[in-house]
């Protein structure tokens, strides 16, 4: 591995770690806001206890998401200074807007929400959690607009004096066709993540014999919430795939392991290939279903699908000599894992709703055990989605404009990167261990007991555990 590989590995490690907690926080913020709204509207204290219970998970997740986000803001300059110079005129703007418009909002109002219980009028306190939720969503929009520009650069020109890309139209960047699909796909994936976490923790509590009313309420709200979110995520993902055929054909061809262009293309359901960047066409073995890919991508029996070799030839003609094929194996499998995880989450939420209608949800231990998968499936889907979209853009860091190999900092050596990478891994490892342990502890403890419940006497609200209230 060379310096560039370590720099890339560092970006992947820090971003994937950050990306465990970001979708979780976005999804939970919305879920908590809905719970608190229902309490505000109905006065039913079960919703209040639900708000406080899920609020704890939100705060643990947000704390880790926020601190690891600082690294995200700065590492472009640290490891990718040539990239930063090249794109700063364009990429910096949405990043600065994210800070000014979204970060200030979510971090200020989360403080108001934590410490404002009983201090703020109820209405304003409710507004605080909604502003946190809106802030997290806005933040996602800006960072995805920045990322979409890397996938599909628009609204720019190349300044011939500096050789750098220069912004010509901010609206083209903010309303890039790529972000208009990437944003709903990602944000709905985040809602799915939050919903799935609620389903999984609720199932965990039922399995432990906890029959708190908060759990039933949460489950009943989270199942349709998750189902709607995951279905919409898929719909927008499908749209992204179609757009990608035009904007980044190579990414899509790699995802489907299509080596050669052709009509009536078959769909690969299982492939093994040598772990070279481009295993086409001799180094790949697939089990394929005839015509299916043409049906999916082109909605026709004999539709033409472009293959890796032809796209490589076309891009070579367009961009000059070089290899334009991303690691096909990574693309193929990350794409399938993402979709597979999405389908499983759909099945779990759909199954839960079906059981609920037959009044068997609370007793079906089989469902509850299956729902525990909800702890890992959304993370798997989010991770593979990110890997798919970023690895699939290679060898480019900005598609068609700047190669990743020309983007890293020339003055940062392998030793520096390995040292900081080790530092991040240790630091983040500690954070994730503690975060997971605290969440498990909160989950085991469960929501505050129902009023009049037998257990309530043993554990008054202000027992030692009340240390673990929302505020620290």
């Amino acid at each position: 591995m060379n310096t560039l590989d370590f720099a890339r590995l560092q970006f992947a490690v820090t971003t994937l770690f950050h990306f465990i907690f970001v979708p979780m926080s976005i999804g939970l913020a919305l879920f908590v806001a809905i719970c608190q709204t229902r309490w505000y509207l109905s006065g039913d204290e079960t919703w209040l206890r639900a708000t406080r219970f899920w609020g704890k998970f939100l705060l643990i997740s947000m704390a880790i998401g926020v601190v690891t986000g600082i690294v995200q803001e700065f590492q472009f300059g640290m490891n990718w200074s040539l990239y930063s110079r090249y794109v700063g005129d364009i990429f910096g703007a949405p990043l600065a807007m994210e800070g000014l418009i979204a970060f200030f909002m979510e971090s200020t109002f989360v403080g108001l929400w934590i410490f404002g219980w009983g201090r703020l009028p109820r209405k304003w306190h409710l507004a605080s959690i909604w502003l946190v939720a809106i802030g997290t969503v806005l933040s996602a929009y800006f960072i995805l607009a920045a990322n979409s520009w890397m996938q599909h650069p628009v609204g720019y020109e190349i300044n011939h004096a500096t050789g750098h890309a220069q912004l010509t139209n901010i609206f083209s960047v903010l309303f890039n066709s790529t972000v208009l699909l990437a944003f709903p796909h990602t944000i709905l994936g985040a809602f799915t993540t939050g919903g799935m976490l609620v389903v999984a923790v609720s199932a965990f509590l039922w399995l432990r014999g906890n029959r708190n009313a908060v759990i039933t309420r949460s489950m009943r709200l989270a199942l349709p919430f998750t189902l709607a979110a995951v279905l919409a995520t898929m719909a927008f993902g499908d749209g992204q795939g179609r757009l990608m055929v035009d904007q980044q054909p190579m990414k899509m061809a790699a995802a489907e392991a299509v080596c050669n262009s052709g009509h009536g293309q078959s769909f690969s359901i299982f492939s093994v290939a040598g772990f070279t960047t481009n295993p086409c066409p001799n180094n790949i073995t697939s089990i394929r279903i005839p015509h299916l890919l043409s049906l999916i991508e082109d909605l026709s029996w004999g539709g033409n699908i472009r293959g890796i070799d032809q796209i490589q030839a076309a891009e070579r003609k367009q961009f000059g000599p070089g290899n334009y094929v991303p690691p096909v194996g990574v693309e193929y499998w990350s794409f399938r894992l993402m979709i597979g995880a999405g389908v499983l989450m759909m099945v779990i939420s759909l199954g839960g709703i079906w059981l609920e209608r037959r009044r068997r949800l609370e007793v079906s231990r089989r469902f509850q055990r299956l729902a525990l998968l909800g702890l890992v499936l959304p993370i798997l889907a989010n991770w593979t989605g990110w890997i798919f979209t970023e690895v699939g853009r290679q060898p480019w860091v900005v598609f068609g404009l700047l190669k990743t190999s020309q983007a890293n900092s020339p003055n940062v050596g392998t030793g520096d990167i390995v040292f900081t990478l080790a530092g991040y891994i240790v630091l983040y490892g500690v954070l994730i261990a503690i975060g997971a342990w605290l969440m498990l502890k909160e989950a085991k403890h469960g929501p505050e007991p129902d009023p009049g419940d037998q257990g309530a006497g043993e554990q008054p609200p202000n027992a030692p555990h009340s240390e673990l209230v929302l505020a620290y």
Partner: protein
Amino acid sequence: MHPDPTFLQVLWFVLIGVLWAGYFILEGFDFGVGMLVKLLARDRVDTRMIIHTIGPVWDGNEVWLLVAGGATFAAFPGWYAAAFSGFYLALFLVLAALILRGVSFEFWGKHDSAGWRATWEWVVAISSAVAALLFGVAWANFIHGVPMGAGNVVHASLWDLLHPYALLGGLVTLSLFLTHGANFLALRVSGELHERARVLSTRVEPLAALLAVAFMIWTIAQQSGRGGVLVLAILTALAALAIPFARRAGEGVAFALTSAVITLLTVTFFVTLYPNALPSTTGRAFDLTLSAASSSHYTLVVMTIVSVIFVPIVLLYQGWTYWVFRHRLGRDDYEGPLNPIAVAERKFGGSA
């Protein structure tokens, strides 16, 4: 040679200066309060009170740094790229300190064991001190200049950044933020803790004042012949010398004065930098000027419009947060049920 900076480039240089000043004033007392967790707290109630004085606001305060970084990226990408890659390991240490500090507040109260709490108290105190020190080291290096050659690439190891002038700068921010934090705490708590904060402040502030004066004298010597730097450095030194006397005029005045010194210090940094974004010690020809580091006119116009709309809104709601949490915290708030929701209910009569 690059032309003089344009109006918008100067405006953005000033705005980034405002963001840094805001950051140092706000997170300056957060850092100070963080150190005081270990210096002043005698028991768990004290610790809780100290943490709660910044609990609702520290996260929002930290965003000033993120926005200063983002604004630098957007307005002066050359500056962002040169400085952040050039200060690689130093910046990593700052990030590690900020990460540990941020989660400490959250983790501290989440598990009921004395060892657990003691661990995070130490982490808060040490990471606050390290960050406070390193920001001074970084800024002293910015104005001192760094070994930067062709293509605005900085070649400096971590040790190159730790020269005596930079270390003095670090000690200035460390002592100044500690004093500032003690002044803040004195305003925000009552009782015995209030008294201890006041005493600590009176002990630390002469040191902070002397270090600041020494640092300003050294800066004037280093930047000899520059009128603007001379004026600002003298003003900063005079303000710093007044710190030990401000208390007589009241605690609010003492806090306002440490805020003013921090502001003047930041202004001194920026006046010293101008018209460069990052001076080079390799040779004047390699200085990274603002105009060379800058984004296009169009991007600066876009960012100016966005800032004109959103900066006042941010200032309003952040200001409002301080208003909401303006009440002094006392020990009686924390005795009995150690539950801040109950505390708030008791004190303000609101229902949860």
